């Protein structure tokens, strides 16, 4: 569910936009409030050089960070057909159109194939800016097709999650994507092709409760919000304040639900080493 979007203006204007588009040569870190030179931030993959805070980055930037060079994109033109003819504060169709023109994407995921440290891999990266990275029929289909390609070519599969969960505007159809993708991951598992799930800030709801928790290894960037229910829903249910650090990457690591918390700068090397363990190089 994407309830948390209301409290997070960052969904509409992600930190990455602020850092990239702010006038001038410097920005203020969201976490430590120190002044950082934008050049330093960019060189450091949008991680604060002073405190290590990980700014949100776009799906495309994530793919550029991991692939050795150019990558091929798949199913770029899949578009939702709005099965419910859903209208909230505006028609879902209009919301999609607006998102499509502002992001240059047809929906909230980029499905790509390329080389990671010389190895062929398929990577799906979720785009948080696109309706909170929410999962509807298009994301379900694109990820399932990417899994099927990974099975057919025996290429490792990676998903980079950043999402509020299932897309409310597609109702039960979005819920069923959880089952569809998880079933496809069962098939990937049966043929012993590795799947690595990377969770980034934020990953909640039906995305966490399906593919994001089903990796042979599940890893996360430091400080990411990761959970099933969002913190506000939990607070309203139990009427208590939540403990410090609740539902962070470090919290999940402590409770046994992540294999590792990996800083962005070390990510590619970490993935490469993990894949070396899973599969011999050709």
């Amino acid at each position: 569910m994407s309830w948390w979007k209301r409290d997070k203006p960052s969904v509409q204007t992600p930190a990455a936009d602020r850092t990239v588009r702010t006038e001038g040569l410097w920005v203020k870190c969201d976490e430590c409030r120190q002044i950082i030179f934008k050049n330093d931030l960019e060189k450091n993959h949008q991680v604060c050089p002073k405190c290590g805070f990980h700014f949100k980055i776009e799906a495309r930037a994530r793919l550029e960070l991991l692939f050795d060079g150019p990558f091929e994109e798949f199913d770029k033109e899949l578009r939702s057909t709005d099965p419910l003819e859903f209208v909230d504060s505006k028609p879902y169709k209009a919301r999609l159109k607006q998102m499509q023109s502002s992001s240059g994407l047809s929906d909230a995921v980029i499905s790509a194939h390329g080389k990671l440290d010389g190895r062929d891999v398929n990577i799906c990266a979720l785009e948080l800016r696109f309706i909170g990275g929410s999962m509807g029929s298009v994301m379900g289909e694109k990820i399932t097709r990417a899994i099927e390609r990974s099975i057919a070519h025996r290429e490792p599969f990676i998903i980079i999650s950043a999402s509020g969960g299932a897309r409310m505007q597609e109702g039960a159809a979005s819920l069923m994507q959880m089952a569809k993708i998880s079933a496809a991951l069962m098939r990937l598992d049966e043929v012993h092709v590795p799947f690595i799930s990377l969770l980034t800030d934020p990953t909640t709801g039906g995305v966490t409760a399906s593919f994001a928790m089903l990796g042979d290894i599940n890893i996360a960037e430091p400080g990411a919000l990761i959970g099933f229910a969002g913190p506000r829903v939990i607070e309203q249910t139990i009427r208590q304040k939540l403990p410090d650090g609740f539902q962070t990457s470090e919290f999940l690591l402590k409770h046994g639900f992540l294999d590792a918390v990996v800083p962005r700068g070390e990510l590619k090397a970490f993935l490469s080493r993990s894949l070396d363990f899973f599969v011999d190089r050709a």
Partner: protein
Amino acid sequence: MSTPDSAASLTAPQPSDPIWQRVELARHPKRPLALDYIERVFTDFEEFHGDRAYADDSAIVGGPARFDNRPVMVIGQHKGRDTKQKLQRNFGMPKPEGYRKALRLMKMASKFGRPIVTLLDTPGAYPGIDAEERGQAEAIAVNLREMARLEVPVIAIVIGEGGSGGALALGVANRVYMLENSIYSVISPESCAAIIWRDAGQKHLAARALRLTARDLLGLGIIDKVIGEPEGGAHEDHEKTFESMGAAVRAGLEELAPLTRAQLVDDRYQKFRRMAGFFSEPQ
């Protein structure tokens, strides 16, 4: 998402709103609950407890039973009837150990070749600190993947509220049915209204927008069958409702009986692979 809609000026749900009436029927205090079906549609039920790791979650009940004198595994989300029961059952909101128990029982059934019937009735998976600490998301996710691997017939029936991922975690089945006045949704109408109109009071509008009734979901190809209820709803005539469900389970098991283990896995896989493909694509 933040702009209030003009619809927010509308008042409370009209008593005549047929969709909101359905939501209320799905949650009706006298509606049969999972254990009622387990005791009356099935015989010889023996409850098996625990997830072998942490605890026994009484929001989910399960164990072997007989249907038409043949052994089946039956698992249901049980809300409880009076206040004491509701508290004991956590209002039918399972915790991770509940999902893990359910999976343990389903794997047991698969190992010994016994069909599985699941009964879905939950407002949702429990949103609490302890549930998050013990991996609510992981427990649901693993059920979705592992249900896809079961080598026996699986029938899932929404009997009341099919609350999002918390219901789906028992719902990856070869056949998915809904009782006529049950609902199945990605989000509750109240939460949906709170997001869209910042007002849970607009729940009846959200219920309409979400297309969460059995007929809607049959039309969208998300379920296979609507099980009829007596005039006025299941609570008006429990016996009749049990009969209708029995007939549906019988028909479902007969359809699936000829399939081999491999065919059952493939049947279930293809069903979800094709489901909800609401996208367009240039040729």
